[in-house]
């Protein structure tokens, strides 16, 4: 069976309910590239869709070179970003494609067990995966699948935190001084991949690298899922080829045609001014703007909203979500949130605070065990750059109109105890 190279790819056959194993095989076929899989994956140049955009083939190669007969594949569908929906959407329409990809990865590295990690918050998705795994169990072939349901937290989706949870029931990132680092579940080397990456592997395993590269750019091949929220007609998950212009992605989603700014990559991502809407949506084009595709998240913020206020709410929430293991993150992020609040309200010598905020950003950057603080710093720095005029207004005592608005555009879960943010 051949697949046309039109979209949707990983969302092919999506009908609002998960495809059963038989429907899945009818839609995608059962032929695989077989032993050429590793070569095809390498040639496809697939980048991980979890946020770091690391080359999947390199990760697989690293795990292949590890010793041990009990390697593990960890499929990460934790989706820590409150505005991200792509893994959930994928698992509620094509769960078997994700599982196929995981199975191919297991064959490549020689793993015997596959842990599928879905946050226990999403009971519907847990149910879908459970059902899909049961269908596979009836076949009595292939590696062993285990469904894991860690609690939902922002950092729980970080791969080392997830593996830590599988080992010790703690969703805390681990310190990895030497990268690339091989994670271990028990004593077994583990390959952690995002659920969407796994689905793409499932497609490459069927149709090969040449087919995969027909969409996308040479450096960022293939298609990707993006979750678009904010000032849009309806929050949706779209599958788009990498390298499409941001403008056309936004137009497809029915977004505000004349927005103020766009948040790219998630809560640890970066703001992009709306005047750069014609940039291609892929890492190499976004790099000059300090942004990246990240976890495939786009939040549209319209004119009239206050970018600083939106950023402050995100930073306060992210500070609360820190696992408080590392000092610079546990103390630094609440300090950033408080400084931003002072700038926002223009109270207590805001210009001094603004300078202090910039210094603190530089001090915190790169000093945590994981990338959580770095992401927040990137967000704050890009906000100060993109909303430069707004910041000036706030500091000079002439805040923008949006600050009094009760309408928020970036969905941030309610903080339980914002007044006690500094942790000791």
């Amino acid at each position, binding site marked *: 069976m051949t697949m046309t190279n039109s979209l949707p790819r990983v969302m092919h056959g999506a009908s609002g309910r998960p495809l059963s194993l038989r429907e899945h095989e009818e839609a995608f076929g059962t032929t695989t590239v077989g032993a050429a899989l590793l070569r095809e994956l390498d040639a496809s140049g697939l980048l991980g869709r979890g946020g770091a955009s690391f080359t999947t083939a390199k990760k697989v190669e690293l795990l292949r070179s590890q010793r041990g007969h009990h390697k593990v594949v960890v499929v990460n569908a934790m989706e820590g970003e409150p505005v991200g929906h792509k893994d959930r959407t994928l698992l509620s329409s094509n769960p078997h494609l994700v599982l196929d990809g995981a199975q191919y990865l297991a064959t490549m590295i020689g793993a015997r067990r596959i842990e599928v990690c879905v946050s226990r918050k999403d009971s519907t998705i847990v149910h879908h995966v459970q059902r899909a795994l049961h269908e596979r169990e009836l076949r009595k072939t292939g590696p062993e699948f285990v469904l894991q349901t860690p609690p939902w937290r922002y950092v729980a989706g970080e791969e080392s935190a997830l593996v830590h949870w599988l080992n010790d029931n703690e969703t805390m990132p681990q*310190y990895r001084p030497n990268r690339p680092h091989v994670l271990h579940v028990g004593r077994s080397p583990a390959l952690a991949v995002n659920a969407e990456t796994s689905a793409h592997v499932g497609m490459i395993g069927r149709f090969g690298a040449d087919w995969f590269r027909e969409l996308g750019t040479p450096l960022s091949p293939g298609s990707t899922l993006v979750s678009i929220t904010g000032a849009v007609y309806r929050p949706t998950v779209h599958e788009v080829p990498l390298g499409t212009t941001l403008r056309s992605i936004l137009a497809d989603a029915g977004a505000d045609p004349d927005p103020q700014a766009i948040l790219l990559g998630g809560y640890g991502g970066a703001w992009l001014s709306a005047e750069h809407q014609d940039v291609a949506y892929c890492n190499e084009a976004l790099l000059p703007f300090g942004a990246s595709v990240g976890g495939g998240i786009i939040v549209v913020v319209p004119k009239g909203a206050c970018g600083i206020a939106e950023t402050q709410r995100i930073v306060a929430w992210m500070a609360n979500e820190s696992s408080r293991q590392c*000092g*610079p993150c546990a103390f*630094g992020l609440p300090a950033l949130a408080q400084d931003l609040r002072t700038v926002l309200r223009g109270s207590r010598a805001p210009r001094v605070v603004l300078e202090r905020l910039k210094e603190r950003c530089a001090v915190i950057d790169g000093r945590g065990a994981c990338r959580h603080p770095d992401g927040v710093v990137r967000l704050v720095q890009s906000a100060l750059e993109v909303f430069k005029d707004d910041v000036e207004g706030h500091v000079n005592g002439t805040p923008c109109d949006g600050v009094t608005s009760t309408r928020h555009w970036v969905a941030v879960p309610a903080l339980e105890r914002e007044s006690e943010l500094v942790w000791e």
Partner: protein
Amino acid sequence: MSRRIDHFVLKVDPILCDGFGHCHELAPELVHVDEWGYPIINEQPTSSSDLALLKSARLAVRGCPRQALRIERISGPT
């Protein structure tokens, strides 16, 4: 040129570190502290032939109450 391991950097495990600040006291040339008392370590490799610095780095490693520091030997800048 052969790779010679003649430089070192001090590295901290940020999870273990609790901000006692002993490292700053023992090796002020290599370690600064931020406003919360956590170390900011000079990331530039230091030559191992600088025995005074190597000694203070060792003191910092041994003096850390959380044993969060270690000396990593690397080949220097070429």
